[in-house]
């Protein structure tokens, strides 16, 4: 088909016109694109830049290393150990199940750990390392390292975890740490973001929780660059953590170990205290448990075994346990009576074996009676009637408050501010207290019961140790548990002199010497014979429940015929050396029977250890007991004293 040149010209002109129009439209649209780009990159640039930075930078916390806890000689009680772990990275593993099975041939891993790891793996990104097992032995890690080529995606790894090298010895004092629980977070008003770090440990009980703020330290931060998947690309900057403060306790690790071991078979508590400084040298609560179990997360089987044990291993008997002090309380009654002058030091009281108040008859422990008793005899032989009489006179003239005031001066009924969990205040009854709590008036019988440390009176071993230390030193020493923080000694406050004439104090001390050393002393068998080491003590037996008439009818007269948990508590308080007091001790054996048989012997042994600074030599014991003591020490599992590896650092 031929076309005229005119038509061709026309067509070309039309195409050109349309082409120019289209070109113009395209240019216009490019203008729109350009304006849009300008708007985004200039006007809104700052916003987008911020968003890009937010995308890119994550701030991560660096957990601080927890402060180390030492004993008074610089032996580590709680430290941070390398925790060897096996970590699995899913994206590097071909077959997760097969790999885990192969790892388990080399290292023992519990089923629940595997399940937890698999759960975690499903939740997290494939490149996040998941802990398969921790607290591994170095040998296991080495085994894995050797087999590493055959186990892609499995890496041994090391972190810090709390460890208590002395095991059960300090379980009740230092307590333990554990992972942060939901409850911990709820309890805090403004939880530290540090607590959100998985595997971060905080104090759960004892010193670990009470001094958490000192021990924890402050977290550091690092700014890291992450990619879209959350994988860490590099560290941009780092602001290192501040380590927690190191603590030095007043406890002596050797004495603590000896006390725990000496009481291991009993349900018992024992406090040893320096009578001058108030330093607590031992606070043993038996039986104990291994705090390391709790750090790892205790199995419910182990936990139930501890919880259901009738000797209550989880319970800190030294401060949490309050018991009727029994006859160990008699020094208080005597001192109150002496101070108020209702009875003279040499004055004698007739003990017929009982005392009748109103229509009730109050018995002396010795049914037949002690005959004429002065103060010294009454304490030495623990005559109840003497103290009934003294307290009756005191209450008649000055009210029971004269006794309770004195008790508080000696630390009974006081809540001492120590960094321990669940410290109990005990109870020193007053008229006002009885009216408030029982809605009853104070009865003469209450006075008599109180005078021998029964009835309402409740004290903890710690309080009894403070009482004994104050009798020994004549000063109101305060117990203390923390010797230094980060190498800086905690100052010891000057203890004020007790408001008791020294002649009266001396009379009590002499009587206590007689208890331990006198011919008729109730604790004569548990004495220290070495010169200059002699003890002054007092036994106590506190009734848990009276033997009922029915039981009497069945023929039950003696304590050891009763079931264990209804037997009497045996108590003993003492200090030594008598002439130059250094250490005071208070000890209770729950349901152990009489104080002289159950509590006095271990108290003597523990006090002797404190005096000698190590397992006491046999010369300290009466000759006839040496063979038995030797056998006992051989049988006991005493840890040799440790030497500090390094001085407690200032970190």
């Amino acid at each position, binding site marked *: 088909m031929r076309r005229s040149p005119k038509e061709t010209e026309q067509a070309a002109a039309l195409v050109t016109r349309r082409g120019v129009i289209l070109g113009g439209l395209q240019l216009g649209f490019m203008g729109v694109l350009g304006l849009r780009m300008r708007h*985004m990159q*200039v006007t809104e640039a700052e916003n987008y830049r911020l968003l890009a930075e937010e995308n890119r930078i994550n701030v991560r916390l660096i957990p601080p290393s927890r402060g180390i806890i030492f004993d008074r000689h610089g032996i580590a009680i709680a430290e941070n150990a390398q925790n060897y772990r096996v970590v699995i990275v899913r994206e590097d593993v071909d077959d997760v199940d097969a790999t885990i099975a192969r790892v388990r041939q080399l290292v023992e891993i519990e089923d629940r750990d595997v399940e937890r790891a698999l759960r975690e793996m499903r939740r997290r990104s494939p490149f996040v390392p998941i802990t398969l097992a921790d607290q591994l032995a170095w040998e296991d890690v080495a085994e894995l390292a050797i087999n590493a080529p055959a186990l892609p995606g499995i890496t041994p790894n090391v972190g810090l975890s709390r460890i208590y090298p002395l095991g059960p010895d300090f379980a009740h004092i230092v307590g333990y740490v554990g992972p942060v629980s939901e409850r911990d977070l709820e309890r805090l008003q403004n939880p530290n973001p540090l607590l959100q770090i998985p595997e971060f440990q905080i104090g759960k009980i004892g010193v670990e929780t009470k001094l958490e703020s000192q021990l924890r330290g402050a977290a550091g931060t690092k700014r890291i660059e992450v990619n879209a998947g959350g994988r860490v690309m590099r560290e941009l900057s780092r602001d290192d953590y501040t380590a927690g403060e190191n603590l030095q306790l007043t406890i002596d690790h050797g004495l603590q170990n000896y006390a725990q071991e000496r009481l291991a078979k009993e349900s018992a508590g024992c406090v040893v205290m320096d009578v001058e400084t108030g330093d607590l040298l031992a606070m043993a609560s038996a039986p104990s448990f291994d705090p390391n179990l709790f750090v790892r997360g205790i199995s419910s089987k182990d936990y139930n075994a501890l919880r259901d044990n009738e000797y209550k291993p989880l319970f800190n008997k030294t401060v949490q346990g309050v018991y009727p002090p029994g006859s160990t309380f008699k020094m208080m009654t005597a001192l109150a009576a002496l101070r108020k002058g209702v009875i003279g030091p040499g004055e004698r009281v007739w003990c017929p074996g009982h005392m009748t108040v109103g229509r009730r008859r109050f018995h002396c422990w010795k049914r037949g009676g002690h005959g004429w008793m002065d103060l010294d005899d009454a304490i030495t032989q623990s005559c109840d009637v003497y103290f009934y009489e003294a307290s009756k006179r005191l209450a008649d003239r000055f009210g029971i408050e004269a006794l309770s005031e004195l008790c508080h001066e000696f630390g009974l009924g006081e809540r001492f501010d120590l960094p321990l969990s669940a410290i109990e205040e005990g109870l020193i009854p007053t008229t006002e207290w009885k009216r408030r709590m029982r809605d009853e008036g104070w009865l003469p019988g209450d006075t008599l019961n109180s005078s021998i440390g029964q009835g309402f009176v409740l004290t903890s071993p710690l309080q009894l140790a403070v009482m004994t230390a104050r009798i020994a030193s004549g000063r109101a020493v305060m117990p203390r548990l923390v010797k230094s923080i980060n190498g800086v000694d905690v100052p010891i406050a000057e203890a004020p002199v007790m408001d008791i004439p020294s002649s009266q104090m001396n009379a009590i001390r002499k009587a206590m010497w007689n208890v331990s050393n006198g011919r008729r002393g109730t604790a004569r068998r548990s004495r220290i014979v070495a010169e200059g080491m002699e003890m002054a003590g007092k036994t106590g037996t506190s009734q848990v429940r009276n033997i009922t008439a029915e039981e009497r009818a069945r023929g039950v007269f003696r304590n050891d015929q009763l079931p264990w948990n209804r037997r009497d508590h045996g108590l003993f308080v003492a200090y030594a050396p008598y002439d130059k007091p250094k250490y005071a001790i208070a000890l209770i054996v729950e349901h152990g029977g009489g104080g002289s048989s159950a509590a006095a012997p271990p108290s003597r042994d523990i006090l002797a250890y404190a005096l000698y600074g190590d397992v006491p030599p046999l010369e300290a014991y009466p000759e006839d007991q040496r063979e038995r003591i030797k056998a006992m020490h051989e049988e006991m599992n005493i840890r040799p004293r440790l030497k500090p590896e390094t001085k407690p650092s200032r970190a």
Partner: protein
Amino acid sequence: MTYLVNQVQTVPTGFRKILYVNWPLVLLLAAVACVGFLMLTSVAGGEIDRWAERQMKVFAVGTVLMLGIAMVPIWFWRSISGLGYLFALGLLILVETSGVVRMGAQRWIDLGVTVFQPSELMKITLVMALAAYYDWLPLQRTSRPLWVIPPVLLTLIPTALVLKQPDLGTAILLLAGGGLVMFCAGVSWWYFIAVIGAAVGLVFAVFASRGQDWQLIQDYQFRRIDTFLDPSSDPLGAGYNITQSKIALGSGGWTGKGFMQGTQSRLNFLPEKHTDFIFTTLAEEFGLIGGMSLLVLYGLIVFFCVLSASQNKDRFGSLLTLGIAATLFLFFAVNMSMVMGLAPVVGVPLPLVSFGGTAMLVLLAAFGLVQSAHVHRARSR
């Protein structure tokens, strides 16, 4: 034979043709390709051999191909336009029946050595076929309804096939490309106004029907449209790409963060960073200046094409030139609108910059046609 009517004597012959090639256009194409090499190196973290090297080889082959095509007289290309169209259509149907499925779509033909996307070829052969059709059609029939139907069918058949693959991006490009060639050919404005009006009306009808008794599409289809239109409603799902893309682009500022310093692309926040979203890396690392430079380069390519077409008295040649320029424009306009958040995300690469062998080769071949039209243009007396 409009060409013969014009002065055959002025057309260069032999190797002299080389001198008549539109060299500014070649240089502009090379410049755009170089931007591509640079960005492909950057998104590979400095590794040239990851993507850039292959792209360079393809570009070298493509340039030779372009010049080769330019040497062949334009009337040869016109004479095989119909055949080319049928060949591409045949391949599209073949892909439908025995194509290779990749990334959830059936678009590729396995040639043994490489895989090939027939839809890429169709973009060019459609333009050729329409240009040839209007070259043949007497001018006064251009806007007659009967003579509007064949080009509409020529456009809609491949569009429907591509849409079925499914490849929405290419389908839109084919439809728009065909429309623009018809517009250049001089089809009456009223057709375009009517079609655009009808499309707008249909969209309104669909949206108006939402929640009514006479709802035209299903609820799930509406929800898809919602995310399609407003990606920010689902910033971690469907909207993630576009959100991150905007952040990358916006954070570039005036001068950008510097070569290989773009945090968004280097840290993988950007999706498809070596293909569809490569422009965001450019804008992030070289800022407004970098982005505008590329836009200007594209603008100049379009300008030189329009200039060449306006100097060409041959209807086929000028329509082909305008159609190919329009195709290029549609490519980068849709791609840039997408990464700037002006348009929904559809898979359209940035021409000559995004990594991709077929697209590059086909585009350079198309510019070979533009060059052929330029070299063999019918010059005015």
